[in-house]
């Protein structure tokens, strides 16, 4: 399982891990782009499932809000592959 840092930059959702950085206007398109990126990097070779955890980085919330809530959301996405395509 890969751990991604998730942020919203005002225009799009971004998921980052090391040198992997993927964005999408919606979470669904982010997932699609991420899946494609994993395939392009041959990271799913021979796998039927790939699990990704995204942890939202609260530091992109305004400072005044952080004292009230220090967690936005984390999500886990399962990519299932059939001939390297998501089912």
């Amino acid at each position, binding site marked *: 399982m890969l*751990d991604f840092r998730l942020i919203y930059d*005002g225009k799009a959702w971004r998921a980052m891990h090391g040198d992997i950085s993927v964005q999408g206007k919606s979470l669904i398109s982010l997932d699609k782009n991420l899946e494609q990126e994993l395939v392009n990097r041959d990271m799913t070779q021979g796998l039927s499932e790939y699990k990704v955890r995204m942890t939202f980085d609260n*530091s992109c919330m305004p400072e005044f809000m*952080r*004292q*009230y809530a220090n967690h936005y959301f*984390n*999500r*886990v996405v*399962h990519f299932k592959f059939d001939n390297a395509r998501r089912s």
Partner: protein
Amino acid sequence: MSPASSYENRKWYSGMFIQEDWWSVWLGMTFVFLGLCSIFGPDLVGWVANPHAWSAGTPFEKMIAPMGKGYTSWGPWGSLIASYVFISIPVCLGAYCMGWNFKKFVGGWTCIFVITYASWIIGHHATITATSREWSKYGISFGLGLGGGGSYILALFVGLFIGNFMKGFAHYLSEAAKPEWFIKTAIVFLGVKVGYMAIKAAGFVMELAVAGAAATIVAYLIFWPGTYFIARRFFHFGRKTSAVLASGVSICGVSAAVATAGAVRSKPLVPIMVSALIVVYAVVELVVLPPIFSSTMSSEPIVAGAAMGMSVKTDGADGAAGAVLDELMRAAKLDKDGVTYEEGSITISAVMTKVWIDMFIGLWAFVLAMVWVYKIDKVPGEHVPASEVWHRFPKFVLGYFLAWGVYLAILFLTPQLAPAAKIGAVPVEGGMRKLFFMLTFVSIGCITDFKKLAQSHFGKLIFVYFIALFVYIVPVAVIVAYVFHHGMMPPMAG
């Protein structure tokens, strides 16, 4: 990346030393355990400075004094300096661990501490505190009869003056103006009060806890769908915005709005806008509701407290409003009957419902997340981790129940230790709790800039919030509080 970044929220123990919520537990429990040392002999917390009502000619050492008898020789200045030093050490350590600008924090904290004690002492002038029965004692012919509530109101107005008319200074103080941290710490201290109040009013405390939980569940089920309906039907907001708004207005302010927005996978802009609105409206409620509730529900103080807990959003404003209500209702009762309720009992009723609300947020957000992800948005492949419930659980509640449980256990299992335990408990649950309430009032005022409301483009959000809050939430909160709490009376003082 800042060490306080909650990108660390990956493991169950993430954030223990970098989040305010956790630091309210560490800060609160430090003094609770120091207080407990009185069981073994030494009073390690009696140095805390506590103001008393005064009038012209009262010597300074009678206006403010250490709470512990063993510290009387320290005098007012000794106890003030000790309070500053001994409380600043853990507070500044917390600020350092949370990665705040340390230099700016120490400067801001020192200013806020001085403003707080100055407001606290001035607010204890007899013309503000004394009821008509006490006028002759202080040699005055007029008094507002606000009890200790006068200090709270004064502290709030001093803070609001700074926040709205001395913006440069308010900006300087902002690093240390942390009302949520201060109130959560005060609530941990309140746990001590609840623990030892159970000795003389065990039935009252248990009934309050059960009634508070039941009222909160019912309120959730009525508030949320009603507000969601108002937002959708009359103001035509989208599903996600309506859900965030419904949680923010009806449940528990910013934390609920953020939790819900996260649960429904909303873009952060929505909870940011709703939160900005909540923070300002919470201050309006804090100013308006205590005098209204105290004058209209004088025969049902616990109903008034519970309704306050369900009406006022944000923990800081609710705890603060509960404290003002406590003082106003106790002063009115004293004025009318010559006797009054146990100090803090009405505050406890206001905080009790809020604590339940806070605890349910995580669970509610988890259910909402599953409904949204699996049924509404149907995001393929996404799963909602159960750890979300824990990440959203308010950690300060652990300190509140721990303090409550420790004192309850000591006093019930070893009643012979009760007198010694009380020596260390009173400065914590009395002096320090009130000090942290006062810090909350000053801080709320400092960070509330009403002009932002006019400058921001909230549009119809302002109106839907106003209507939902004052036309729907507050009246329903009073009804629900009445149903579950009517007839419950706080123990009498003494």
